[in-house]
């Protein structure tokens, strides 16, 4: 779980030898997970062969837009980011917490023999490493530890891959989470394709990573190659179009709970919860207590939940957050303000998924800016919003 910084030596792995990386990880006993093509999207799933990767495909992302298109080359990691984050493996959307059975007029908790198998992720982006580090704070580094997350996390092997291009909704540079991978990985790769060559510059982050590297047919990178991770991620950084202004962000949101912009957002927000499902840091869950048909055996299932639902805040008498504006306000204020008080960091890593997957294209960076501007010239905006309601 420690965030190791990479040693200075870099290596080169030819793309034709990439299969060996997968094989070595499988050989160690890892369930290997990486990007695949499924349902016209890049989906993180089990992989056994290089051919499982989305070779030659890229993703076009913008507000409320996602589509795949062919690249002019055969890049393995030529897309930006998958719709679903890695949290679906570390913190599955549905987990049985326990089973219980009635016996002797009482009940007993039944032992659950399931032990999670160790996983290796291939293709983790820098923003996603930061998201995992944030979920570590939530699930491992607090007062109570989540056993499921902890069990998955402690044996996790991470092969990070630097971004060679930025997506249309990316803003990692605003929140210092990328695009260059800096820490929190076992191995980090940078994909290089030029002229007739296709190889990966490999950086080592941990001893475990070193151990895997030693089983691969790598050579030491020369001076020019060693500079490529920085050069390539610098190019990606320059492509980023969106910006989240984090100046005084907590105070801004703490003092703007009555900002008229919340009403305006509520006219567009469908409270569909997509943003919370695709967000790599959103961690809320609910539980369902169910029985079998006899009523003698019960279990508790934990499922992902969203602060955008009415049930989320239900207490006797009704939902606390019954308007959509209060639910959007809760989500955004949590991500960008209260999270800082709770966990000492923003709850946003700038991956842009909430923008891409919002069916009406609400953009968190634009909404924050609108709140800032509305605050700055309250009177003019007030007139505008009256127009909207009239």
């Amino acid at each position, binding site marked *: 779980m420690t965030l190791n910084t990479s040693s200075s030596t870099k290596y080169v792995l030819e793309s034709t030898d990439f299969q060996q990386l997968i094989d070595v990880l499988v050989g160690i006993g890892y369930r290997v997970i990486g990007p695949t093509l499924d349902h016209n999207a890049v989906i993180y799933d089990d992989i056994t062969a290089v051919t499982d990767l989305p070779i030659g495909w890229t993703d076009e992302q913008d507000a409320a837009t996602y589509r795949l298109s062919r690249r002019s080359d055969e890049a393995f990691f030529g897309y930006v980011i998958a719709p679903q984050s890695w949290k679906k493996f570390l913190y599955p959307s549905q987990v049985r917490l326990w089973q219980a059975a009635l016996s002797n007029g009482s009940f007993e908790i039944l032992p659950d023999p399931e032990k999670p198998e160790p996983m290796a992720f291939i293709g983790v982006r820098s923003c996603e490493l930061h998201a995992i580090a944030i979920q570590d704070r939530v699930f491992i580094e607090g007062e109570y530890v989540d056993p499921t997350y902890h069990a998955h996390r402690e044996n996790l092997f991470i092969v990070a891959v630097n971004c060679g291009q930025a997506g249309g909704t990316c803003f990692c540079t605003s929140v210092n989470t990328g695009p260059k991978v800096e820490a929190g990985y076992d191995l980090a790769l940078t994909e290089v394709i030029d002229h007739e060559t296709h190889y990966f510059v490999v950086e080592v982050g941990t001893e475990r990573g070193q151990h895997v590297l030693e089983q691969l047919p790598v050579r030491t990178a020369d001076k020019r190659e060693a500079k490529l991770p920085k050069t390539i991620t610098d190019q990606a950084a320059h492509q980023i179009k969106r910006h989240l202004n984090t100046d005084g962000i907590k105070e801004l949101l703490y003092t703007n709970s009555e900002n008229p912009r919340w009403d305006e957002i509520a006219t567009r927000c469908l409270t569909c919860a997509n943003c919370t499902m695709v967000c790599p840091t959103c961690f809320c869950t609910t539980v369902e207590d169910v029985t079998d048909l006899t*009523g003698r055996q019960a279990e508790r299932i934990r499922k992902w939940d969203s602060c955008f639902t009415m049930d989320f805040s239900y207490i006797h008498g009704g939902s606390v957050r019954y308007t959509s504006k209060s639910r959007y306000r809760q989500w955004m204020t949590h991500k960008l303000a*209260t999270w800082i008080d709770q966990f000492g960091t923003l709850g946003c890593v700038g991956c842009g998924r909430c923008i891409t997957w919002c069916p009406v294209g609400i953009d968190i960076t634009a909404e924050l800016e609108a709140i800032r501007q509305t605050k700055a010239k309250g009177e003019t905006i007030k007139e505008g919003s009256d127009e909207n309601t009239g």
Partner: protein
Amino acid sequence: MINLTPQLTTQQLTDPMQPEPFRVKRVMKESYDTFTLEMEPVNSERLFTFAPGQFNMLYIFGVGEIPISISGDPNQPAMLVHTTRIVGAVTKAMSKLKAGDVLGVRGPFGTGWPVSSAKGCDVVLVAGGIGLAPLRPVLYQMLAHRDRYGKVVLLYGCRSPEDILFRKELEKWRARFDLEIFVTVDYGDSDWHGNVGVVTKLIPKAPFDALNAVTMVCGPEVMMRFTAIELQKRGVQGEAIALSMERNMKCAIGLCGHCQFGPTFICKDGPVFTYPQLQSWLAQWEV
């Protein structure tokens, strides 16, 4: 500054999400929609030590689980006592339990009332409706060590005379010379000769030294908000006002996210807070 950290550390179970079976020893009907359960652990001699103000997650087999504060005597840890109102599926199922039935318990969780900080001070408890239940352990604690405190005052407001909780106990306590108990109802009936009006109306005349008082407030959010304002008008410092909050909870260990109130998780940072911790958030809608 009052100290909310419970003196007793929560007994960390191997898995805090697993309920432990408790058997109901006695069920007491308190009013038409409230009842009290007394229970003991099924499988152990565990003494259920808790700080007044802490809560448990109570599970009805196959039905569901809800947070309920502990209403019993902290000096009698052999018996776990909960008082609740029938409002939903779980409390309805709970109201049908009889002696011998079993339910699941997780806890205790959360912060307690500032009982230790109240030593040497006047103590003012302000309760609204079922909000008296989480404050009853404080009264038991004060009565067990009556000499440690100055005046002990309970201001209790509820909807109607029928809704008065722990009526017999309140009548008994009101007869004591070392407790001051004032009750008010929103709507009286022809037999009611007591106060009518909201509980905040009792604050200006209540007998306590505002500059040397610790106050503990539990009731609906809007009642607590205006009680805190009224107490401050009497001269009570914000830091000397403790409130107990309520939200939807699924885990009680700060991981499910449901009970967030601004930056706080009510389950682990609360449920008992000092007023300054909540003040700016209490004034907002739908937090």
